[in-house]
């Protein structure tokens, strides 16, 4: 769109940085191992604490506090990453903090320590996403950003999928505690990979989407709340996460009900299949985003979600659910690349890239946290099919929003 023409001017102002393949591979490895580390957190925490003789009330409280922390810190974390001189250091601190919280969980699952570990993990995770996006933007030339983010998504998905299998096996063979020891141990290769990235190759200006805005009277969120394409995209992300987050847990509940022998294996497959799928197609999506533009791919990703909801509602076989999860892989790959990419497009030249990324992530996290309760209520009152169809309806609204109001944000070729 015309509003973004000015981006190409700045692109040609400075020669593109040719970052070394050593740095590129370092970032690949960091994405992979951080995804490994993050898999240990999430719903597995509840299983672990249950095995440690925690009551469901205490587990629920800790998980709520952790969710609120992760929500509240999104925007401040983005502002912080924009302000940070060295994004690599931010990534290293966040990785170390996540490793420490995993160690605390493994070593001493008592209430105050677990609460502290979960808060620490929430804060570190909020820093991690913008730190990785900032390093990526700083490392490559603007026309290579799509491809770089595609590579990020590939290694993150591969890391998630492999870690889910690995941690499932660890929990089964050894103990639930061993899972957190493994989680903490995997932070070491993550840090090694991170420090393979040459700090001199990360352009600080590019990594925050332009020069630092020196005018002190402006609020840190200036240029975010009045940015129309960003608002449309953010609203789309809210609807997407509202519809997407409860789908796998709901499908998992059905699988536990309909299949006794294979339920565990089928749920594992439903977690791993989308990750494999996303690992395969993400780089292609990154490349195509520079050729076709962002809009067609974004619409593909948003279209996959309502179809998935409808298929879950009408299909009976738990085995078919695994096949439907390919659609999850499609939308996960698209959104994994498009979220950091579109925000980079619309925030170009502002110097507030990470603050904007944090704001969109905040909006999506609100959608996600409301969604589980909403879907649970509908499922309880009217059954699984109604819950899936409602989620499909929300997803369809997101699709419509993208179709009607989301402009193409790819910078114009000169």
């Amino acid at each position, binding site marked *: 769109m015309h509003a973004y023409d000015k981006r190409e001017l700045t692109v040609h102002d400075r020669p593109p940085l040719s970052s070394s393949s050593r740095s590129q591979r370092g970032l690949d490895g960091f994405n992979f191992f951080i995804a490994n580390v993050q898999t240990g957190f999430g719903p597995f*925490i509840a299983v672990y604490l249950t*095995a*440690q*003789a925690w009551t469901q009330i205490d587990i629920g409280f800790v998980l709520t506090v952790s969710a609120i922390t992760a929500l509240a810190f999104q925007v401040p974390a983005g502002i912080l990453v924009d302000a940070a001189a060295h994004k690599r250091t931010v990534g290293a601190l966040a990785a170390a903090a996540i490793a420490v919280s995993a160690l605390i969980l493994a070593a001493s*699952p008592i209430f105050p320590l677990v609460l502290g570990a979960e808060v620490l993990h929430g804060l570190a995770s909020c820093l991690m996403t913008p730190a990785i996006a900032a390093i990526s933007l700083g490392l490559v030339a603007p026309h290579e950003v799509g491809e770089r983010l595609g590579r990020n998504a590939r290694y993150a998905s591969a890391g998630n999928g492999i870690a889910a299998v690995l941690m499932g096996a660890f929990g089964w063979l050894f103990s639930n505690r061993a899972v957190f020891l493994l989680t903490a141990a995997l932070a070491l290769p993550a840090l090694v990979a991170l420090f393979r990235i040459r700090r001199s190759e990360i352009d600080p200006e590019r990594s925050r989407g332009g020069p630092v805005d020196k005018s002190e009277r402006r609020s840190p969120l200036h240029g975010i709340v009045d940015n129309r394409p960003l608002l449309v995209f953010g609203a789309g992300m809210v609807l997407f996460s509202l519809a997407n987050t409860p789908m*796998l847990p709901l499908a*998992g509940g059905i699988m536990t009900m309909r299949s006794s022998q294979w339920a565990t294996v089928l*749920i594992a497959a439903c977690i791993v299949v989308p990750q494999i799928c996303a690992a395969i197609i993400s780089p292609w999506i990154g490349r195509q985003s520079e050729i076709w533009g962002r809009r067609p791919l974004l619409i593909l990703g948003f279209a996959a979600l309502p179809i998935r909801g409808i298929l879950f509602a009408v299909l009976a076989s738990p085995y078919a659910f695994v096949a439907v999860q390919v659609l999850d892989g499609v939308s996960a790959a698209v959104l994994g690349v498009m979220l950091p990419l579109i925000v980079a497009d619309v925030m170009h030249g502002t110097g507030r890239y990470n603050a904007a990324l944090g704001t969109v992530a905040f909006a999506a996290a609100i959608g996600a946290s409301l969604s589980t309760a909403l879907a649970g209520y509908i499922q309880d009152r009217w059954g699984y099919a109604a819950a899936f169809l409602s989620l499909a309806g929300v997803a369809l609204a997101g699709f419509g929003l993208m179709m009607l109001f989301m402009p193409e944000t790819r910078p114009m070729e000169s």
Partner: protein
Amino acid sequence: MRPVRRAAFVAIIVVAGGLALTGGAPAWAQASSSPATQTPPAPASKAPTPEVPTIPPGTAAAVLTKNKAQAILGQPIVSTKGENMGRIVDVIVDKQGTPRAAIIDFGGFLGVGSRKIAVDWGALNFSPTGKSERITLDLTRDQLKSAPEYEKGKPVVVVEAKGKTQPMPSGEYPLDE
């Protein structure tokens, strides 16, 4: 007046021989000093742990060794066929304090897809004196898979060993807040 819920735990969960079994159940450890225990003290010659905490004179106390009693919160359950049936997360007692059902967290992978199901207390077999400390359940995964989820504040549907389910009327529900 202590909450009913708390009393339920005190009455049924007895931690014996230190915390060797669980490794870290801090709050419930105090339950072992409850005078409500009916098991007589183990003969000192058989007890492997001489570390009996000193109790103020005049307080009734019972000492339960590891092979007489066990803590059950968070303990894994297996079916008689050896299938993994999840873990005990809560216990339902009636107005007399008699255990009626155990709530188990059943199924799932890495925490996705698990459900809480109430199973008949009588279907659980505890064998603290046996060679294994495993708690077995006279039900199979197939029998549990379609059981309705346990929800607080609603009548508890208890799965019984014969395979039929028996709803506990909401009026008798012991944990209503």
